[in-house]
C-alpha cells in the first residue's frame, strides 16, 4: 500500500476497481508524477469466492462446475486440466475420440478467448469498431459450442473419462465453414489494425518484458511467448491428443505489447489448424471410458496436471487422502503470475500506456482472485 502519504510532487490515483479498462474488478494503485507513473501496485481480491476451499467441502464431481467459473473466458481448458488430474488419480484412460473432441472444443474456446481479447484490447486503445467485429466472429463460435456443450460461457462439459455428448455432422460442417470464414477475416483485421500506423506507434516498444524478467516472474502463455520464449505446455509437456497434430508455437522478439498482440493473432491461426486437423482425423469409437465409478474414492496420493490455457499455464494439483472429497486442490492460474510483473513494467510509463500494458497481459480477474 502507498500509505506514507502523498509526497510533494507525486499523487495517488486509483485505477479501478470500477474503471472501464481494468476488465473486472482489479484495482491498481498508481503513484503519479503528472501523467507518468512512478509506482504501480495491483490490489486484488475483489472477486474472491474461495474455489479452492469449496473443493475441500464437496466430492470430485461436485467441484467440476466450479472450474468453468475460475477463468470464464477459457473455461474448457480448466475443465480439461481438472478432469485430467482426477483421471490420473483414479487411473482412467480417455478414449481417443473423446480426446479429439476435447482438443477441438478446447481450441475453439481458446479462439473465443483470444477474439474477445483482441476486441477488448483495441477498445482499451480507443478503437471501438474491432470489438464488434470480434464479437461477430466469436458469436458464431459460441453458437457452435452451445450446440455441443449446452452453454456459452461457463462450460461444464468434460467428464472424468471422456465427454458426455458426441459431435454431430452439423457441428462439423459448421466448424469447417467457420474456419473458412475466420481465415477470410484476417485480411480485415490486418488492414484495419495490424497495419494501422496509430496502433503500431502506440504498441511498439511499450511495456517491454525481457526474457529474464518473464522467467523470473513465472510469466506464461502468450505474454511469455511474446518475449521470445517458445514455451507452450501443448508442445513442451504434450497432453491429450496434441502430440498428434502439426502446429507451431508463434513467438515474438522484443516482448513489447505489439509482439504480444501478434503472438495472439498468430496463435489463433494455429488453433484453426489444430481444429482442422482434428476434424480430418477424428477417429470413431466410444466417447466415454468404461468403468468410471459413479462414486469416486481415489486412493491416497497426489497428482499435478498442467494445461495451456489462453493465458498460460494452468496447473491443477490434487491431493487425495482416500476420501470421497479431495483433501486439497491447488489451482495454479496463469493470470496471477502474469499480473505480478505489472509493477515492474508500469514504472515510468504514461497512464495511456498503463491501460494498454494491462490489457496486453490479458488478465482475467476472477481467475486471479479464485
Amino acid at each position, binding site marked *: 500500500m502507498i500509505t506514507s502519504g502523498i509526497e510533494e510532487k507525486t499523487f495517488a490515483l486509483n485505477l479501478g476497481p470500477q474503471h*472501464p479498462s481494468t476488465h473486472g474488478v482489479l484495482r491498481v494503485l498508481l503513484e503519479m508524477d503528472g501523467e507518468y507513473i512512478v509506482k504501480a501496485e495491483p490490489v486484488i481480491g475483489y472477486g474472491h469466492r474461495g474455489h479452492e476451499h469449496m473443493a475441500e467441502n464437496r466430492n470430485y464431481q461436485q467441484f467440476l462446475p466450479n472450474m468453468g467459473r475460475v477463468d470464464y473466458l477459457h473455461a474448457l481448458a480448466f475443465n480439461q486440466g481438472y478432469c485430467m488430474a482426477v483421471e490420473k488419480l483414479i487411473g482412467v484412460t480417455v478414449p481417443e475420440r473423446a480426446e479429439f473432441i476435447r482438443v477441438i472444443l478446447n481450441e475453439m474456446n481458446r479462439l473465443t478467448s483470444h477474439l474477445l481479447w483482441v476486441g477488448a484490447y483495441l477498445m*482499451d*486503445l*480507443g478503437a*471501438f*469498431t474491432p470489438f*464488434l467485429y470480434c464479437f461477430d466472429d466469436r458469436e458464431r463460435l459460441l453458437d457452435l459450442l452451445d450446440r455441443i456443450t449446452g452453454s456459452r460461457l461457463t462450460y461444464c462439459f468434460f467428464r472424468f473419462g471422456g465427454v458426455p455428448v458426441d459431435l454431430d455432422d452439423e457441428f462439423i460442417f459448421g466448424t469447417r465453414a467457420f474456419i473458412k470464414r475466420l481465415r477470410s477475416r484476417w485480411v480485415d483485421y490486418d488492414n*484495419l489494425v495490424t497495419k494501422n500506423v*496509430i496502433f503500431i506507434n*502506440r504498441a511498439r516498444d511499450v511495456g517491454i518484458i525481457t526474457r529474464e524478467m518473464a522467467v523470473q516472474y513465472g510469466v506464461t502463455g502468450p505474454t511469455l511467448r511474446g518475449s521470445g520464449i517458445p514455451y507452450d505446455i501443448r508442445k513442451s509437456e504434450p497432453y491429450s491428443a496434441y502430440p498428434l497434430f502439426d502446429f507451431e508455437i508463434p513467438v515474438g522478439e522484443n516482448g513489447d505489447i505489439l509482439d504480444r498482440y501478434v503472438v495472439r493473432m498468430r496463435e489463433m491461426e494455429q488453433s484453426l489448424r489444430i481444429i482442422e486437423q482434428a476434424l480430418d482425423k477424428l477417429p470413431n469409437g466410444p466417447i466415454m471410458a468404461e468403468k468410471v465409478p459413479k462414486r469416486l474414492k481415489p486412493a491416497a496420493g497426489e497428482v499435478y496436471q498442467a494445461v495451456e490455457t489462453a493465458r498460460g499455464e494452468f496447473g491443477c494439483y490434487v491431493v487425495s487422502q482416500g476420501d470421497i472429497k479431495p483433501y486439497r486442490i491447488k489451482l495454479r492460474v496463469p493470470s496471477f503470475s502474469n499480473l505480478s510483473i505489472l509493477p515492474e513494467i508500469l514504472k515510468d510509463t504514461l497512464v495511456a500506456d498503463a491501460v494498454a500494458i494491462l490489457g496486453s497481459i490479458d488478465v482475467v480477474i476472477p481467475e486471479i482472485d479464485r
Partner: protein
Amino acid sequence: MEQVGQLLGSDVVRILAGLIGVIALVAVNALFLIWMERKVSAHMQLRPGPMEVGWHGAIQTIADAVKLMGKELITPEEVDRPIFYLAPIVVFLPVLLCFLVIPFSQTMIVRDMNVGIVLILAFSTLTVLAILMGGWASNNKYAVFGAIRSVAQNIAYEIPLLVTVMSIILMVGSFKLTDIVAAQSRCWFILMQPLAFILFIICATAETNRTPFDLPEAESELVAGFHTEYSGMRFALFFLAEYTNMFIVSAVATVLFLGGWHGPILPGVVWFLIKVYAVIFLIMWFRWTFPRVRFDQLVTFAWKILIPLSFANLLLTALLLKIF
C-alpha cells in the same frame, strides 16, 4: 404600418429572429447528429443501431434528452461550486455565437461581419476554457487529467489551424465568410489547397476532441475525462456543445474548402448542409475506424509535423500569389 415594416427590417428583429433560428438549429442539429452518429457507428459495426423509437430510431435521441432532463443534477461535495455550475453554460455560449456568422446561403446569414472567420476561431477556442473550468472544478483526478490534456491539445492544434486558415485568407484577401465562398464560384479551394484541407480536417478533429484525438475524454483511460462528475442536463450541455462544435468546424471547412453554398440545381442552403454533413460523416468515419493516439504522440505530431507543414503551405501560397 410603416413603423412595423421598419421594425421588421431593423437589425434588432433580424438578430432576434436569427438567434431563435440558431437555437432551433442547434437543438435539431444535435438531435440529428447524435442519431446519425449512432447509425453510422452501428452500420460500421455490423449492427442496426437504434430501431425502436420512431422510424429507424429517429426520435430515440428525443427520448434520451427527456431522460437526461429527468435526471438528478448531482453535485459532488468537494467541487468548486460556482465554477462547476458555470462550466456547462460557458461551453455552450461561444458555440451559439459562432452560428451568427456562418453563411448558410448567400442571404441566409444572421450577421455578415467582416471578421467572420476570426470570430469563429476566437469563440471556438473558448470551449477549452469551459473544459478546463469543468475539469478543474470537479476536483476529480481523472477530470483534471482530461482538462489539462484538453488545454495542451488545443494550444498545440490551434496554431496549425490558424496558419492553415491564413493561407486561404491570403488567396481571398478578406476575413468575410461570404467573400471566401464567393471566391470559390469557379473552383473550390480543396482543389487548389489539398494539403491545407487535410491539415484543417486533422486540426478540426483535434479541436473537437474526436477520435483519434479524443484524449480529454478518453474513456478507457480517464473514465469520462473532464465531464466525469457531470450528470443530467449539465452533462447534456457538454454533449450538445461537442456535437454543435463538430457542426461548426464542418461548416467552416465547407466555407473554406468546399465552396460553401455553390452547387447546381438545388438551392444554396441545401448544398451547404449536404457538404457540412459529408464532412461530419468523414469525422465520424475516423472515430469508428481509428484507435486513439497517445498524448505525447499527439503533441509531438502537432509541433513537429503539422505546424511546419502548415507554415510551409502558407509560405508556398504566399509565394505563388506573388508570382502569379
